């Protein structure tokens, strides 16, 4: 659009970390699957499995 000189190469890569994350559906998917699986599912099942058997 503009015919200004290209900015120095280094600047172009400086997309903030959060924006990179928010722009990447697959990273979001991975986070969305891993977090509940660890904190809810695995931890929860570990509690259930840890209940001692009735004698």
């Amino acid at each position: 659009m503009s015919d200004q000189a290209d900015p120095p190469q280094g600047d172009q890569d400086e997309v903030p970390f959060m924006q990179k994350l928010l722009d990447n559906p697959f990273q979001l998917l991975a986070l969305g699957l891993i977090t509940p699986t660890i904190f809810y599912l695995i931890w929860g099942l570990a509690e259930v499995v840890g209940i001692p058997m009735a004698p």
Partner: protein
Amino acid sequence: MADTLFRQCPRSGLFFHRTGESLMKAHAVFAVVFFLIGGIFGLLVMLTRMPSVHLLDAETFYMALSIHGTDILIFWIIFFEVAVLYFASSTLLRVRPAAPALGWLGFILMVVGSIMTTLTFLRGNSSVMFTSYVPMPAEPTFYLGLILFAVGALVGCFLFLATLVIAKREKTYDGSIPLVTFGALTACIIAILSILFGAVILIPTFLWSVGLIPEVDPLVYRTIWWGLGHSSQQINVSAQVAIWYAIAAIVFGATPMSEKVSRTAFLLYILFLQLASAHHLLVDPGIGSSWKVFNTSYAMYLAVLASMVHGLTVPGSIEVAQRRKGYTNGLFEWLRKAPWDNPVFSGMFLSLIIFGFLGGITGVIMGTEQINLIIHNTIFVPGHFHATVAVGTTLAFMAITYFLIPVLFQRELILPKLAKWQPYLFAGGMTMLVIFMLGAGTLGVPRRHWDVSFSDALMQYQYAGTAITMLGMAGLGGILAAVGGGAYVLIAVGSLVFGRRLDQNATLLASFGVPLKPGSYTLVRPERLGMTPAEAEGAVSHAAPGTFTLALVFLATFVVYFFINAKYLSSLWHMS
């Protein structure tokens, strides 16, 4: 190339791809069919829970309750959500949908599965309700139907992601995906999680029902099942919030107050909302408090924070847009002068307010481990979730339907006067149902109970007269809501069949998903979607004092209600 067939809607400027729009229509139509079935059974359930009517016998009551819960909570909502996924990807990003043949396969799986499960219910031997707790057995086709439906929905989710990839590769948009698409992405991610959890528990349960597995442990079932049952409700929350943003943009030309804040709030949903599944197990013995407290407080409050962000930025962005148009008098002129007789707006705004005030506040109450003891398994619980799914989600879907009928289906709305009143009828009836269910539940009336008068029970129990009166009042609200729901079906289906055609090619078959004649589409690629003004210009004006005042009212209500419940708890348990 058949791939690049688009039409541009002259009324909205939106682009519809030929196959994409057929997929949207087919899913949306089936959604409404299941809304009708589920709604009829909801009315029957309600008429049974009204002590003065007590319509159905016990067996039929539990069958009706099973059909109501499953068909309306799962089939109506998920069919509609898959339609939303196609809309938010193909239409909003101006791109062809990925692998449409697979899309149809997913659709057929959903249709077969939902019909199979519903017919199994109707045979009468599978009245296990939508939670289907083991060891209560249902016929194998009940589980199989659910599994097929879920696989179909999963296909829809993956095709959504694939469509995002295509749009990025073919550079159909500048910058980031639009916020509404981002909300749909959130819904899609949560849906994939829900369906995976569901597979982990429902496949073994299906195998158990056909005798291939000796038993499924009830507590393991409950733990994993609620990973599905709770998370799937968060698909709804994300989809409905995406629709709120969409309607704010459609009706007011509002732009999000801050793209960054709204997207971060969706990220909080992705990370934390599903952990709150633990609130369904707060009274289950055998699971420790650390797990319960971590998942339902620390994690859940972050997700609640996100909902409050959306609940503020949507009206806030509307306020900013209205003030820019000159509605600047006092705190609330922007709201008073909003188009209250346009059901697209009124439906969306009622959805937002009632979801927040009734659904949100009661949700936090229920999610508090101690207070949960007062109302666990009482009719307070259905009171809460009718505020969230029946008003929040369902009314948002109804509102966007009124927009889609002319734009997607190319038909004029029939009965516009009725349409104007429909959101008020439905929301008014539902609010009454919700408030009286909450009240009766606080007085101890159980949920899922056929006869609280215990007329033929060996042990008698008498509920307070107020509680019984409240059930009756809830019933009146339910009847009103059913009338509002019926009006929606009448207007939606009636418009597809009898509504004036806004395009000569919008035939009856086209209303149900058959593509329009090729001549309706052009081969020209839509112009690339530009950046949103907020992205391009950075921050704009943010002053929204009216919304800020509303937020203070919300917080005050919350604090008072929380205190009342804590006080009530202390009086119930006589602690000294």
